């Protein structure tokens, strides 16, 4: 027992070291959220409630009365809800067979198709808008269908975007569903359809509800796609805020619309979080093993879902992407060639731009790198704090509130954030620095948009670390800081790679907030693309198409590299 004496008993250090560490881990993200999200958004919302008079700020709800009595407002609200609802229902109806075929069946090339399905989700909204516009335009592959600037056209683009959300969310759960429950139902005499309806569908319910809520949220706040495809006839609350701010310079009614948008979004978020809780509970019922069977086309059971999936993937996903690439190779004079790509080195016909497209690409990469860095540091700290289960009930609730607070940027429109930045950050906290001209606002705004995705990517991975692994490390003499460094660090590192990729891709494509904040000489690629399609001339349009292809390829490459880092492990929400 001489060995026992060798173990030095170090003096106890006060616990405030740990409190200080966790305090900083909470304070930094909260400070960021307060300064760059809550303050701008709340200030913006208050613009709708107050007016400046000689006596100071007075409560004035006439802005509400005025905006809410306009027929145009209700048309926009109606269009927003109709677009979001139709887009959600269609995404779910088409996504269910897709989830079954891609996650429950095996066939050659399945990995490729799964990757293909994911690409649209990460494509920048402006690129999707341009792709569908090229599809519907007279002379385009679907020019005969009369979908240009139509409700159906917008809904199709929304489904293109969100099909992957349904397939991946529902498929991830379906894959892990124990097939024996359905087999038991069959053994009790149920037909395949009845077994699906009474056993499988209820088990998938939470995943479907969760996916539907997220899709509804994305559809209701869609901006770039609607702006590009809707023309003057169709809009959402989001595009209307943008129009009233930048075109009519009517800040008050824009603020009122932002409040309306918040109401719609808060409802969707509430449903989404309810569904997520139920899904996390339901996940405990599933097995770790992945169960799938070979695609049975002969037997007929898998024929219908396989056909639906084939039509969706070929017609809705591949056609617009292929159409965009093909159209980008048509020179302004109608011949085939790389003219549009060569023109990316110019500032466009009649100097439509202040920078060349390649310079804009450099801007995009630079801002996205900064945004990803900020988002991963802030989001990583949030995920780390939220992954803990404190013993005290009060602290546990506080952690839950923190989790919810950082989901808010997912729901509040990027346009509102960007607009809020403009009206608050001219002299932040009384400091004499105008952040609006410093160029720092663009990456910060993009980071605000990307943080919820970073948290949702890292949180499941950190939560999956068995707490006893940390206890084992502590019993081996590792202080809390060392446990963090040697256990959470290496195990969370893989989700960190995916989170960086996600944040980078989202920042690359971010358009809503960036369109408010980027100055002409620091314009990013999405901003440049939007400006190009708004200018007359076949040359500018061709450049927009080529730039869209460049941006799409870049985003898809980043995402594919990030997916590689994740491997086959489940994790993340999307």
């Amino acid at each position: 027992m001489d060995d026992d004496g060798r173990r030095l008993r170090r003096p106890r250090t006060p616990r405030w070291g740990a409190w200080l560490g966790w305090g900083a881990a909470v304070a930094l993200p909260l400070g960021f959220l307060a300064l760059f999200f809550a303050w701008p958004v709340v200030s913006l919302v208050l613009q709708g409630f107050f007016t400046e008079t000689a006596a100071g700020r007075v409560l004035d709800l006439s802005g509400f009365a005025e905006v809410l009595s306009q027929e145009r407002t209700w048309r926009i609200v109606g269009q927003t809800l109709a677009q979001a609802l139709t887009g959600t229902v269609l995404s779910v109806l088409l996504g269910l067979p897709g989830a079954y075929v891609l996650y429950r069946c095996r066939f050659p090339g399945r990995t490729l198709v799964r990757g293909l399905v994911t690409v649209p989700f990460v494509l920048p909204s402006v690129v999707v808008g341009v792709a569908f516009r090229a599809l519907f335009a007279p002379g385009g592959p679907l020019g005969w269908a009369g979908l240009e600037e139509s409700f159906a056209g917008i809904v199709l683009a929304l489904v293109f975007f969100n099909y992957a959300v349904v397939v991946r969310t529902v498929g991830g759960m379906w894959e892990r569903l124990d097939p024996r429950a359905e087999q038991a139902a069959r053994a009790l005499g149920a037909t395949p359809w009845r077994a699906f309806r009474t056993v499988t569908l209820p088990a998938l319910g939470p995943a479907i509800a969760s996916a539907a809520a997220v899709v509804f949220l994305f559809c209701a706040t869609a901006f770039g796609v609607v702006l590009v495809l809707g023309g003057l006839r169709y809009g959402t609350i989001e595009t209307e805020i943008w129009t009233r701010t930048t075109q009519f310079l009517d800040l008050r009614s824009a603020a009122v619309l932002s409040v309306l948008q918040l109401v719609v979004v808060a409802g969707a978020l509430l449903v989404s979080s309810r569904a997520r809780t139920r899904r996390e509970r339901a996940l405990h019922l599933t097995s770790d093993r992945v169960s799938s069977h070979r695609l049975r086309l002969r037997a007929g059971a898998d024929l219908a879902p396989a056909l639906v999936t084939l039509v969706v993937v070929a017609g809705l996903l591949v056609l617009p992407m292929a159409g965009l690439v093909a159209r980008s190779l048509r020179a302004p004079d109608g011949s085939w060639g790389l003219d549009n790509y060569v023109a990316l080195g110019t500032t466009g016909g009649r100097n439509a731009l202040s920078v060349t497209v390649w310079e804009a690409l450099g801007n995009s990469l630079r801002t996205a790198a900064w945004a990803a860095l900020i988002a991963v540091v802030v989001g990583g700290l949030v995920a780390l704090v939220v992954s803990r289960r404190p013993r005290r009930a009060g602290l546990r609730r506080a952690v839950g509130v923190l989790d919810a607070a950082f989901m808010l940027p997912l729901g509040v429109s990027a346009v509102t954030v960007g607009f809020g930045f403009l009206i608050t950050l001219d002299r932040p906290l009384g400091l004499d620095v105008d952040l609006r001209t410093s160029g720092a606002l663009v990456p910060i705004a993009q980071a605000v948009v990307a943080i919820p995705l970073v948290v949702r990517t890292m949180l499941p991975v950190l939560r999956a670390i068995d707490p006893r692994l940390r206890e084992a490390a502590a019993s081996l003499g590792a202080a809390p800081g060392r446990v963090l460094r040697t256990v959470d660090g290496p195990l969370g590192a893989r989700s960190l790679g995916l989170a960086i990729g996600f944040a980078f891709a989202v920042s690359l494509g971010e358009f809503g907030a960036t369109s408010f904040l980027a100055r002409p000489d620091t314009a990013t690629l999405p901003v440049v693309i939007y400006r190009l399609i708004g200018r007359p001339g076949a040359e500018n349009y061709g450049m927009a198409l080529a730039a869209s292809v460049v941006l799409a390829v870049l985003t898809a490459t980043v995402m594919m590299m990030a997916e590689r880092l994740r491997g086959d492990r489940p994790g993340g929400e999307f």
Partner: protein
Amino acid sequence: MEQAREAAGLAVRDAVVRYGATRRRPGSVAVDRVSLDVAAGEIVALLGPSGCGKSSLLRAVAGLEPLAGGSVAFDGEDLAGVPVHRRGFGLLFQDGQLFPHRDVGRNVAYGLETQGTSRAERAARVAELLADVGLAGYERRSVATLSGGEKQRVALARALAPRPRLLLLDEPLSALDRRLRERLAVDVRDTLKAAGTTAVFVTHDHDEAFTVADRVAVMDAGRLLQVDAPDVLLRAPANARVTEFLGLASGVLTAGAPRRGPRVHDEDGVGTAAS
């Protein structure tokens, strides 16, 4: 069953562990005023059915659960407020909890790294410990390639590496199949005795408890029923509940009279068991 307070070794006094306690609700009691002494170099098994509170008691000793009452002391020093990593106690889980991102050698070396041992010394100690648990030369193996029994051997070597003052083993063999369990139980005792390690071994299997431990503490519903050497326990179980749990035939019970005053009086059980 109050025992003289010994200066060397573990002394648990009237320990209480509660779960789910809030300001309004007292929560459920997992460990109810338990006192237990483990002398230096001794191996004590905590034996009881699942849910009896034996793992909670172990976690409280390790410093992973706060005590709602009572005290835990080692070598006469009260451990209240001393965090897990300062107690110098080793801990072995049912499923090993090896670090998946480290190979076998780096798992065993983990506790040595926190002590600031030199690299050469570390390598020598890792090799020595792996040889002790019968896995010589496994340093570079990935932990994912190990069988269940090998994992537990590595976990044991890892827990022993920093020379803990006390080793706490939480059902370390329960996840293994029967034959392996029987063989490993002997190996664990030999390894612990060779190192002279003081240990508390939690199990629900009485054969395992008798194989590994010097003394066995029988626990039920949060309380200790009896603490004795295996042969005494078999010869003279304190009451019907102990008899029942040890799986002794009811004939043995009538032969031996209760030796110590148990806390739980459960004489009705005898009648039904004997009839």
